[in-house]
């Protein structure tokens, strides 16, 4: 059915740790909520006089946005002060990266406003500017062309969402993001993963990237000939591959379903009329319906013409396309005829629904639990989506979950959602070019691996992993604090991955604080690991700092413990025992010395008693 070649393009977004782009706040927050405020966003005409579709779509969900003001934000993030001058470090990094791709850098930057009315930008837009076009990256499967390199502001961090109220944190808002977009030259999932890695490395090697949970996000554009689908915000490399694979599967079976559907409904009439049917379920035993009804929702049903067996049977999953959409309007209870009877709905209830909707041959139906005031918009939105799918236009924005499955997010934004950031005059790049020139080209992957191994005396293998995982920047910074490359590498490559797997993420700022404290107090590996373990378990660094368990046992403490132990134990048994008992770091040297002394004493007392 699908004779078109698969086309895949990537957009890699990487945070630069230069401090924020249009104000002088830092990247990291110490306090995440020193005050709060509330905003609404209204939609207005764009530069060309028409309103953007995706923006309108968001607005339709009429919401209140609550913002937590962090201590790394100022009036600029609050949208109460126009942007200040652009961050020169970020600009320089962008230009150096663009040159590394062989891109054409413009002489001037026009900062634009990209309309985003989901609340993730207090202004209702994201500031972004096109730094360069063209260029390419060489991969094992051939050259992938770079289409654009943009420098933009990161959005506010979404904290929670509850109906019409969404809560955001301002700590992330305004951090510079370098966006590298490729042409759709990527062939398959594995190639996409490789390309993403190559691009990320080049950005990282400009020296202003630190790996952290939110520091990198990738968008994947994929087209099978049914319009472009954008998978947004993929934060891990591995998910790029999984997402692409599952999306190809989804589109392929969706196209097959459409072909069946269109053969049944030649007129393509996908009228959705949601009819109230709560009376039918007055005595229902269905937990789905009862649960939703208890929060004030009411049952509606609609005919789904020609969709019998396409909603959820075999490969077909048209039902999920509807469910993903209505979920955005808070509708959790969607049931359709392919899975009924089921979910506690009885046969006689189904009969009554059928009597109400009168489905013909090949027709399906669905039942939704929702607020009555949403019915109008829901009907319209479902109808639009089904018509679009039936036209084999699958273009839209999707997200990907941890299992690799993709989910509908919103329609694809149009091209008119941008207009100039009028608060910032044209930014001339010529002075930046001179600085970039002076700094020379970026270091390539191989020479960086060589240099780390050589200069810092770590294994070549460690060096490769550091570089591959974009941890070389962190390695250099942390090592400059503590001056112990092996410890640094170990922490980055073993301690942290292990802790993050078993307990929780560790903020980069806590990592820096840990290294600083270790340096200041002369603490060894055991203490560093104890501190990081505490951080990973959610302790604030203030708590960590004050905790006795991060400090090694003193000689006195050790002596006391040893005096209680069976003298026959081996040193490693002793260590294990003390660790278990106290949970505190042990200074091996001190311990050895004590044990030696004990032995001496034993000997002497042995002598004495003889």
């Amino acid at each position: 059915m699908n004779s078109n070649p698969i086309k895949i393009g990537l957009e890699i977004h990487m945070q630069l740790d230069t401090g924020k782009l249009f104000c002088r706040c830092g990247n990291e927050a110490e306090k995440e909520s020193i005050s709060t405020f509330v905003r609404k966003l209204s939609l207005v005409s764009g530069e060309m006089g028409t309103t953007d579709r995706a923006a309108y779509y968001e607005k339709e969900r009429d919401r209140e946005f609550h913002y937590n003001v962090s201590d790394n934000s100022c009036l600029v993030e609050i949208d109460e002060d126009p942007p200040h001058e652009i961050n020169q470090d970020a600009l320089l990094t962008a230009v150096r990266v663009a040159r590394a791709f062989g891109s054409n850098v413009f002489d001037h930057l026009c900062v634009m406003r990209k309309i985003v009315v989901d609340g993730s930008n207090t202004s209702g837009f994201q500031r972004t500017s096109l730094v360069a076009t063209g260029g390419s990256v060489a991969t094992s499967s051939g050259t992938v062309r770079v289409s654009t390199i943009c420098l933009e502001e990161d959005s506010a961090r979404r904290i929670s969402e509850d109906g019409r109220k969404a809560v955001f944190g301002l700590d992330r808002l305004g951090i510079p993001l370098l966006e590298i977009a490729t042409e759709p030259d990527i062939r398959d999932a594995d190639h996409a993963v490789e390309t993403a890695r190559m691009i990320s490395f080049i950005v990282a090697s400009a020296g202003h990237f630190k790996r952290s949970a939110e520091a990198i996000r990738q968008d994947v554009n994929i087209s099978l000939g049914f319009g472009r689908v954008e998978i947004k915000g993929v934060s891990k490399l591995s998910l790029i591959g999984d997402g692409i694979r599952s999306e190809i599967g989804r589109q392929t079976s969706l196209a097959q379903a459409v072909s069946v559907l269109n053969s049944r409904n030649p007129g393509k009439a996908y009228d959705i009329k949601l009819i109230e049917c709560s009376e039918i379920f007055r005595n229902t035993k269905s937990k789905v319906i009862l649960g939703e009804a208890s929060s004030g929702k009411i049952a509606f049903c609609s005919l789904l013409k020609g969709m019998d067996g396409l909603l959820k049977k075999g490969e077909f999953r048209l039902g999920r396309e509807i469910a993903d959409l209505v979920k955005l309007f808070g509708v959790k209870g969607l049931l359709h005829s392919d899975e009924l009877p089921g979910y506690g709905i009885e046969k006689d209830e189904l009969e009554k629904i059928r009597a109400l909707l009168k489905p013909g041959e090949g027709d399906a139906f669905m039942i939704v639990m929702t607020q009555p005031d949403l019915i109008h918009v829901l009907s319209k939105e479902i109808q639009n989506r089904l018509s679009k799918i039936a036209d084999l236009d699958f273009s839209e924005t999707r997200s990907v979950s941890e299992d690799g499955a993709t989910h509908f997010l919103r329609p694809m934004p149009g091209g008119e959602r941008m207009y100039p950031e009028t608060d910032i005059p044209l930014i001339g790049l010529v002075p930046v070019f001179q600085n970039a020139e002076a700094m020379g080209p970026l270091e390539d992957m191989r020479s960086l691996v060589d240099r780390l191994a050589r200069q810092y005396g770590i294994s070549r293998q460690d060096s490769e992993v550091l570089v591959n995982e974009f941890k070389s920047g962190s390695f250099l910074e942390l090592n400059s604090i503590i001056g112990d490359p092996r410890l640094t590498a170990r922490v980055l490559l073993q301690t942290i991955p292990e802790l993050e797997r078993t307990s929780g993420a560790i903020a980069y700022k806590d990592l820096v604080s840990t290294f600083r404290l270790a340096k200041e107090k002369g603490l060894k590996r055991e203490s560093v690991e104890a501190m990081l373990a505490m951080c990973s378990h959610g302790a604030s660094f203030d708590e960590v700092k004050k905790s006795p368990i991060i400090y090694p046992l003193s000689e006195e403490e050790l002596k006391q413990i040893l005096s209680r132990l069976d003298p026959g134990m081996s040193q490693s048994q002793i260590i294990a025992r003390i660790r278990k008992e106290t949970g505190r770091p042990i200074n091996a040297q001190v311990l050895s010395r004590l044990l030696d002394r004990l032995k001496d004493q034993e000997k002497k007392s042995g002598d004495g008693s003889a």
Partner: protein
Amino acid sequence: MKEKASFGDKVRLSYNGAEIEGTFISHESGIITVKLKNGYNVALSDDRAEYLSVTRVKRLSEDRNGEREISGGVILLATGGTIASRVDYATGAVKPHYDISSLLGEADIREKLGTKVIDNILSENVTPEKWILMAEHTKKELDKGNHVIILHGTDTMTYSASALSFMFEKQSRSIIFTGSQRSPDRPSSDAFENIRSAITFSSLNVGEVSICMHDSRSDLSERLIRATRSRKMHTSRRDAIRDIDGGGLAGIRNGKVSILGEFRPAADETVLSAKLDNRVALVYFYPGMESGILSRIAEKKKALVVMGTGLGHVSEAIISEIRGIARDGVHVVMTSQCLQGNVNLNIYSTGRKLKDAGVISAGDILPEVAFTKAMYVLANHGENFGETMMKSLRGEISARLLN
């Protein structure tokens, strides 16, 4: 290569060897701005750019002012300002450009509303002559039974609103100024909430000229402020216009109105005295101000409003100059740089000397308001200038200072 394309045309250019395709925006100061298909603008140095093709695109007329007459309702009179701002491609900055209807697109309130564009300026360009025009337009609408909402830039809103406040000796309906600190071309603009609340406040029938703006940085509450007790206290915050000591008349929060202070109710009739004498200057005293400078400012003036230090002081060195200016028939009104609190020329020897030199003080009147009041008083009560300045005509002087 001048004017090869005009705004909106589709163009293809060669630039630095690459090909650029998009919509022509502008060509100014050696820079060609083109909007690419992906929405980004790029700025090209024209000495390295060459047009490959230009396809003319006919633009729809932008005449969407949507003026609409009304009587017995609420009329929005547009004068310009941020609330009327849109992108100015000539300078790349924001310029007034009116389309009132776009401001109301959101609100389900069109039915009771009329709209009219009476001017189109940035508010720093307002003049006493413009205040008279505004007042006359307003009078016409009041006479039609309309409440009037004046859309105005926030920079000089206090000046304009207080000038109208003095000229309207009686008013039969509300006169409310509103504006915005964020232009309505952005989703986060405060314009929408401000206009909506101004419409709500207009039903209170306050018989004073007032200002409606955000009361906090959140989009949750607006405040109605007596024009003569208002002042812009921040360059960029949404709640920049504050009531200074007792100017708060009413508040709105989530659509609920509460009364904050006493106000004059609307009168049965409207009495407008649309006369101002613009021969007034506002002068800021600073330490070391040399004598002579005040006299130069006072040339051809009828009144000088001085912003003195503290309770209303200037240096010993220029008291005698002020005495001379006053003797020559120029009224000198003393206000304070502090903005809050009463001027009082009885406390310190400097004050007593100033009083003796003929300087007029009027309690806690704000300097900007003293400035517009002086224009009104000169034109309407010139023979009793000092006495009238010292009397509170429109709530501009607080009998009791509570803060």
